[in-house]
Every structure is written in C-alpha cells, then in structure tokens.
C-alpha cells in the first residue's frame, strides 16, 4: 500500500505504473518523465510533500495511486494541503535588514538539471547581510530541511502561481547550538562502504571513520554502524568537507551516513 510517507522514488521503482497517475494528476509531475530529475528529486520527496508541491488533494492522490496498484486503502480523513494563502503568514522582520540575492530556478528545471547544486553554491556565497530569494513554480519543501541543516530558516510567499522562498540565517542565542533539524536528505550514491565500529571504545571509532574517509569519493556513501551518537566526530567531518546524517535504529545502535559535500 502507498501511504503519505512513501517516497515517490520508491513508489516509482516498485510500481512503475504509478507514474501515469502522477502525470495525469498534475502537470507539475511532468518533470518526473525526465530520468535525471526523477533520480535526483524523487527519492527525497514523500507522497504528502509531492501533493503539496503540486497543490492536489492528498487523499484523492493516494486513492488513485492505490487503485492503480490494486491495493485497498482504509478511508480516512487526510488534511488537504495548506492553501497558498495560508503560507503567507508573517514576514520576518530580519528580511528588511538584509539584501536579497535572487535565484530563479525555473530555467534550470526546464533545462532538465537538478538546481540543488546551484542553490547550495549561492547559499554558501551569501554575505552576512544577504539572504537568498528563491523563485520557483512549485514549493521546494525538501529544500527547507536541507537548508535548515545548514542553519537557514525560510519564509515562503505565493503570488500568481509563483513561489517566492526567502532563506535567511537562523538567529540563535549566545552559546546556543542550533537545534538539529527534523529531517535531512541523504544523497543516492553508487557505492556504499560499510564500517562497523560498535566493538571499539573511544576514540577508536572516530579513528576508524576518519581513516576510511579517503575511500569516500563522489560516488560513495560511507555507512557506519555505531553504538552511540558520535558528537565528537561532526566537527572533524565538517573540516574535511564531508556531510553526515545520523539515524537512531535501536537503543545503542545508530546509522551514521557520511558523504562528500
């Protein structure tokens, strides 16, 4: 059964016939016909997020998708996606003090490439007095978590079918560490290198991980099986240009995924 939390990529892989449903539902999904975009966008987006992006009713979409694959679905009330008007909540005052850097990603998407790299590059080059003004035809919901992880909050406006998203640096109290984001996006890599450090006592897990880094190239994801969250490691990873994601699998069992930034 396909649920609201199912990733679009997983669904398309298991039930290729569902692509047809998506294409019928909204022209926003037409981008999924492009194999490159399908590969880069689809694994990150859940059905719920996809419905929100396309502005269609989530429960209707789920009904249609499940009908297509022949699964029965319990009828339930699913909240419809927030209307664009609701998103125009309160504009943060900080935006008035900062200079916008405009980035229209619509031409990039039209050209069939993933705009993520361009967005990240722009974000990294932002001066302290600047913020990113992103323009797109759909709401880039997965991007919120990606940039939140890099210390950016967002404010979204919707005018005439166009989304304007303002990404600005999070403001935190002195001595406070930014709270970890609720979700993050792990890139899909060709190779996965596994490393089990659960039998090692500190600091040997960190040694083994850092020693394995030279083998982690652009095509590789390092999956570390750890017995605790490696708080000491993060700074080292950051300095060496790696990104990471930690997921608690069970009590005293964590998956730490590491890739080249």
């Amino acid at each position, binding site marked *: 059964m396909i649920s609201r939390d199912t990733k679009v990529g997983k669904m398309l892989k298991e039930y290729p016939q569902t692509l047809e449903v998506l294409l019928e539902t909204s022209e926003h999904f037409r981008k999924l016909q492009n194999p490159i975009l399908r590969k880069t966008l689809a694994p990150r987006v859940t059905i719920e997020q996809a419905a929100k992006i396309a502005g269609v009713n989530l429960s209707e979409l789920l009904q249609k998708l499940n009908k297509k694959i022949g699964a029965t679905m319990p009828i339930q009330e699913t909240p419809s996606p927030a209307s664009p008007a609701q998103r125009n909540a309160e504009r943060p005052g900080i935006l008035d003090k900062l200079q916008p850097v405009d980035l229209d990603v619509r031409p990039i998407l039209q050209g069939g490439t993933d705009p993520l790299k361009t967005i990240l590059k722009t974000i990294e080059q932002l001066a302290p007095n600047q913020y990113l003004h992103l323009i797109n035809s759909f709401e880039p919901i997965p991007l919120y978590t990606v940039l939140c*992880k*890099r*210390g950016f909050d967002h404010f979204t406006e919707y005018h005439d079918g166009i989304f304007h998203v303002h990404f600005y640096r999070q403001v935190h109290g002195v*001595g*406070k*560490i*930014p709270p*970890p*984001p*609720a*979700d*993050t996006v792990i890139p899909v890599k060709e190779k996965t290198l596994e490393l089990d450090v*659960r*039998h*090692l*006592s*500190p*600091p*040997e897990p*960190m*040694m083994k991980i*850092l*020693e*394995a*880094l*030279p083998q982690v190239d652009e095509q590789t994801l390092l999956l570390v099986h750890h*017995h*605790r*969250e490696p*708080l*000491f490691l*993060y*700074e*080292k990873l*950051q*300095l060496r240009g790696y*990104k*990471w*994601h*930690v*997921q*608690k699998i069970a*009590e*005293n069992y964590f998956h730490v995924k590491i890739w080249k930034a």
Partner: protein
Amino acid sequence: MISSGLTTSYAPPFALVRNHFIVSIVAYFLLTLALVIVAPWMQGHYFQPHLLGLTHLATLGWISMIMMGALYQLVPVVLETKLWSARLAQFTFWLFLPGATGMIVHLWDYRTGPGLWGFGLLTLVAFALFVTNLLATLAQVEKWNITGIHILAALVTIILAAALGVALAYNLWKTYLPGDHLHYLRAHAHLAFLGWVLLVVMGVAYKLIPMFALAHGYSMTAGKWAFGLVSFATVGLMTAWSFSLFAGHAANSNRLEIFYALLLATGIAAFLWQMWLVYRHRRRKQADVSMHHTVLSFIFLGLATALGVTQFFLPVRWPQAVREGCILLYGWLAVIGFAGFIIVGQMYKIVPFLVWFNKYSDKVGQATVPMLKEMFDEQLAKIELGLMLAGFLIAAVALPLANTLLFRIGAIVLMASAAIFVWNMITIFKT
C-alpha cells in the same frame, strides 16, 4: 531520533583542563610523600595538625582539583552545551590554587589565626565562582540526564560544605560556634565527601564507565534509587546532627543518625549494584588497568560504608586506640581506597583520551597517530596498580594496630606507586 550537524565543539580549551590535571597529579605525589612523613601521627585521635593538612591536601589539592578540571570538560560534552566561561574557569583556578595551598600549609602547622581563615575564604570564593560557572552552563542545557542531576546536586553541596569549612576555620581563630567543634567538623567532612565527591563520582560513573566498557542494555533503576537515597540520607544526617547539637547527645538523635546512616548504606549498595549491572553488560570483556582500579575503588567504597555504619556499634570496652584507629581506617578507605583508586583508574582513560583528542584527532587518516594504549606503558601501569594496592592495604592494617613502622612501609610503597603514576602521566602528556 535524527540529528545532524553541530558546527561548534562543546569542549573547553585543553589548557584549562590540563592545568587542573597537572596540579592534581603533583598533589597526589606530595600526598604520598606527606604520608611517609606523618606516619608517627597516624594513630590516636584524628584531629591533629598534620592530619588536617594532609586531609586537605588530598581533598582540595588532589580530589577537588581533578574533579573541577574533569567537570569543566565533562559537563559541556555530556550535556551538549558550552562551558559558560572558560576565562572565568581559568581565573577560578588561579584563586583556588593559592587558596588551597595556603589552607594546607596553615593546617599542617596548626596556625589557626586569620591566615587560615583568609585562605579558607579565598578557597570558598573560588568554589563559588566554579559553581556559578557550572550552574550558568547547566542553565543552557536542553536535554537533561541522570549525570546532570547528580552534578547539580553536588554543586549545591560543595558550596555548603566549603562555607561550613570556612565557619570552622574562623571558629579555630575566635571560638563562636556553640557546642563541640568536632561535631561540625564531622558534618563538614561528610557533606563534602557524600554530597560532592560521591555524587559526582556516581553521576560521572554512570556515563564514563559504560562508555569505555561499551556496556548497554541494562536498567538504570538501581542508579536512580541510589541518587535518591544518598541525597536524602545526606540531608537527613545533617539534620540529625543539627538536632543533636541543640538537644545534646540524646538517645533519640542517635537513633535518627543510625537510621540515616543505614539509609545511606542502602543507597551506596544500590549504586554498587548498578555498577555491577554495567560490568555484566559490558561488551569489552578484557579488563584493562583502568577497570581494575575502578573495581577496587568500588570494593573499598563498600568497605568504607560498612565500617562507617559499624562505628555506631563498636563495643565501648574495646581499647580506645583501636576505636580511634577504626575512625582513621574509615577515612583511609574513603579517601585513598574509594576516591584515590577511582581517580587514578579514570585518569588512565581520560588523560590519554584528552591528550590524544587535542593532539592527534585532526591528523587521523592523514598521518600516523598513536593508539590510546600506546601512549603509556600498560605493563608499568600494572606494577603501579600492584604497588598502590599493596601500599594501601599495608597502611590500612597498620591503622587499627597503631603501628607506625607498618604504616610508613605502606606509605613508601604507595609513594613508589604514585611515582610510577606520575611518570606514566608525564609520558602521556609528552606523547
């Protein structure tokens, strides 16, 4: 639970922690040297000039110094926040060092004038700044855990214990406290040892020992009970002693005292049971030299507790010397047996780890770096452990026997052990 990028390291400057550790290591060696010297006085009543100096060399110079250094490092890391002020911590260190040194020197010669009181006051101010710094650090904590709660309780207690100490120092200069000076001294010692040393050791042990022994999957119920019982019983003992102060040594207050002592013993038993659970659930089966020290420390904690409770029931017909020797033995078990062995044992873990992290963690994968166990001679450390145990036990036997020669032999063996320990620590710092 999903978490990710933390751009800031929580740990305080290495130099801050290192300074505390170096002074503490030196104080430990000086303590063993002083024990050799004071051997003739290690009998009879405990209230003697050299013994008072010696005790404060142990509790301030060695034990509190290392505890403060370790807490500056541990609190931010364990509770995921930043030390409120590293500069204040450095400043505190430079107040505490002369304060404690002045106190020890004055007590050693029993110079009980304004000097002792002044240095005591300086030490109290240093403790107050230390506590302020850590309380401000704890105020930023979002995710509390059992270790944090122990530390919070210990911070409140050390201020009370230190303040009581200063009140006692003033009393030695100009007597003003009603009743027996020793009555307050007993409260001061127990408050400091139970509320400060024991609570910090318990809280930190729940975190560090499983971390290095790779233990998990056990229940923490006993540990929580231990905290409740030890804190409650410590407060209880203090109130019982306050009552007996006003009521004289009435039978009722004595019964109250015994009740809280038994409650305290139950709490300590719960702590030891919790540690036994951790030990049984460890994945790292081969015990290293650090673990051996730690296990011995907990055994001595159990023995000290048992002897402490027994004090109430020692037959009055026993010779005075033996009963006084038992009180000295009680202190010996608590200070050297429990605190000493756990400190030496944990330093074999913490010091290599911190030095390694500070010097080599940035080079891992890019250059050859040593392993932790390559940073000191483990064989030498085993000899150190053997000597420490032998010296400790010989001196322990000497105490109730009031045998100066035997105590001195024990102290010399202990000093040899301390010398090896210092050598090992120098090796680690110089790696």
